[in-house]
C-alpha cells in the first residue's frame, strides 16, 4: 500500500493562523485543501512536504457571493458546491459545463477551486475556465492582500504566483452584461482528465464580440492565455467563418505533446474543433435572458 513520507500536520483555525504557520515553516510547508492532487502525489513521493497546513476548517474560505459586478468564490469552495450553485450556473454556465466533467462525485466532494488553480497542472479544467473568464486571484500573505490576473497567476506548469508564506483566498469572476460562455472537453472515460478541452467566455455588444476570453486545457502550458485568438475575436461579428478561423488560431497557439491520451496531432485537431464548438455555444448563450441556459440541453 502506498503511504506518504512522514510529515507534521497542523490544522489551521483561521486564515491568519494558516498564514502564520506557512510563514513559520517556510519552504517545508504546503497547504492541503481537498488533498486530491496533493495526497496522490505524496503517496507516489512526487511531493514530500515536511508540514501540511490543513485549511479545511476555514469556512470563511468556502463561500460564493455576488458583490457588485463580481462573483466572489472562496478558495475552499468544493467542486460539488460550484456544480450545485444556481448563482454560478446563471452567470457562468462555463463553470457548470466544466464541473460536470471534472473527475467523479467522490472527488468533487473534496476537491476545491483553490486547489485546482494552485496545483497549476496544465490539464486542470478550472484553470482553463478561469483563464477564459479573466478571473482574478486574491492572494493573502503577512503584508495583506494582492490581486493578480489569471495570466500572471499561472507562471508555468505547477508554478503559481503564490509565494512562500502566502495562500490563495478567493477567486473573483467578473459579471458582464450580455455574457455567454461554454466549455467543451474530450476525455477517454467518464471522470478522466481531458485529452483536450476548450473554454470560451465573451460578451455580445451590438452584434459584435467583445471581452473575448479563451482557455485551453491539456494541450501544453502557456495555452492558458491566448492573445492571438482573443484579439481575432474582439470586435468581430459572430459567423461560422470566424469560428473556423478562431479554431485554427487556437490550435496553432498551443503546444500539445504525444502521450497515452493521444498524439500531439490529434490534440491539435481537438483544440481547433473544441474551440469552435465552445465559441458557437458561448455566442448562442450570450445576450439571452439570464438563467435561460438551464433549459438548454
Amino acid at each position: 500500500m502506498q503511504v506518504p513520507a512522514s510529515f507534521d500536520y497542523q490544522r489551521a483555525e483561521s486564515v491568519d493562523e494558516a498564514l502564520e504557520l506557512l510563514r513559520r515553516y517556510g519552504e517545508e510547508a504546503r497547504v492541503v485543501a481537498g488533498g486530491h492532487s496533493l495526497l496522490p502525489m505524496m503517496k507516489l513521493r512526487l511531493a514530500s512536504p515536511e508540514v501540511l497546513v490543513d485549511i479545511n476548517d476555514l469556512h470563511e474560505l468556502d463561500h460564493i457571493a455576488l458583490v457588485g459586478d463580481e462573483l466572489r468564490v472562496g478558495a475552499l469552495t468544493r467542486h460539488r458546491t460550484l456544480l450545485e450553485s444556481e448563482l454560478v450556473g446563471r452567470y457562468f454556465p462555463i463553470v457548470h459545463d466544466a464541473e460536470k466533467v471534472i473527475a467523479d462525485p467522490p472527488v468533487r466532494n473534496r476537491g476545491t477551486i483553490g486547489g485546482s488553480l494552485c496545483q497549476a497542472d496544465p490539464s486542470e479544467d478550472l484553470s482553463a475556465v478561469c483563464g477564459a473568464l479573466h478571473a482574478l486571484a486574491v492572494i493573502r500573505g503577512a503584508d495583506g492582500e494582492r490581486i493578480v490576473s489569471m495570466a500572471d497567476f499561472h507562471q508555468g506548469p505547477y508554478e503559481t504566483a503564490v509565494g512562500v508564506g502566502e495562500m490563495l483566498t478567493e477567486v473573483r469572476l467578473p459579471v458582464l452584461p450580455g455574457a455567454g460562455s461554454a466549455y467543451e472537453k474530450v476525455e477517454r472515460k467518464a471522470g478522466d482528465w481531458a485529452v483536450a478541452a476548450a473554454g470560451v467566455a465573451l460578451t455580445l455588444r451590438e452584434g459584435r464580440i467583445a471581452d473575448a476570453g479563451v482557455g485551453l486545457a491539456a494541450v501544453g502550458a502557456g495555452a492558458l492565455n491566448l492573445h492571438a485568438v482573443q484579439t481575432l475575436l474582439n470586435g468581430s461579428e459572430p459567423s461560422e467563418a470566424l469560428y473556423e478561423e478562431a479554431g485554427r488560431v487556437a490550435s496553432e497557439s498551443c503546444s500539445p505533446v504525444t502521450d497515452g491520451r493521444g498524439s500531439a496531432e490529434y490534440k491539435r485537431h481537438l483544440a481547433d474543433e473544441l474551440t469552435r464548438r465552445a465559441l458557437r455555444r458561448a455566442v448562442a448563450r450570450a445576450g439571452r435572458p439570464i438563467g435561460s441556459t438551464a433549459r438548454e440541453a
Partner: protein
Amino acid sequence: MRITVNVNGDDHTREVEPRHLLVRFLRDDLELTGTHWGCDTSNCGTCVVLMDGEPVKSCTVLAVMAAGHEIRTVEDLADGDRLDPVQQGFIEQHGLQCGFCTPGMMLSGRALLDRNPDPSEQEIREAISGQLCRCTGYLNIVRSIQWAARNGHEAAGSQT
C-alpha cells in the same frame, strides 16, 4: 497525534501518524474491514465511505483530516438483522458478483437516496461513476439501487 473520529455513530480515539490514511484507520485500527481498497491511486472508488453523509475516497483522506467528522461505513448500513433497502436491493437484483466494489457502491447508493429518494437511472449512473466494478456488473448495481428507491421509502436504514 491523538485523534477522535466518529465512525458509525461512536467516537473512536486513537494515536496515529499524520500520514495514516483513513482507509487504514478504518480497516487496521478499527477492524472495520468492510471498507475495501483497490487501486490506491484515487481512481477506483472501492474505498468509498461517507464523510458527513457524502461519499469520499478513504484512500485519499488522511485519518487526521477525518477527526471531528462523521464517517459511515458499510458496517453501519444494516440495523441489527434488518438490512438497509440498498442491501436488500443488491440481493433482489443480483447487484454483486465478487463483492469487491459492493460496500462502496451501496454507500454511494445510500447517500444518493438520502438526498434524492427517487433518482433517475441517469442520476444513479452518475452517482456511481467514480467507482469501478471489476466484474462489470453495472446494470444490476443500477437495478439494485432502483429497487431500494422503490421499496425503501419508509425503511429504517436511511438516517436522515
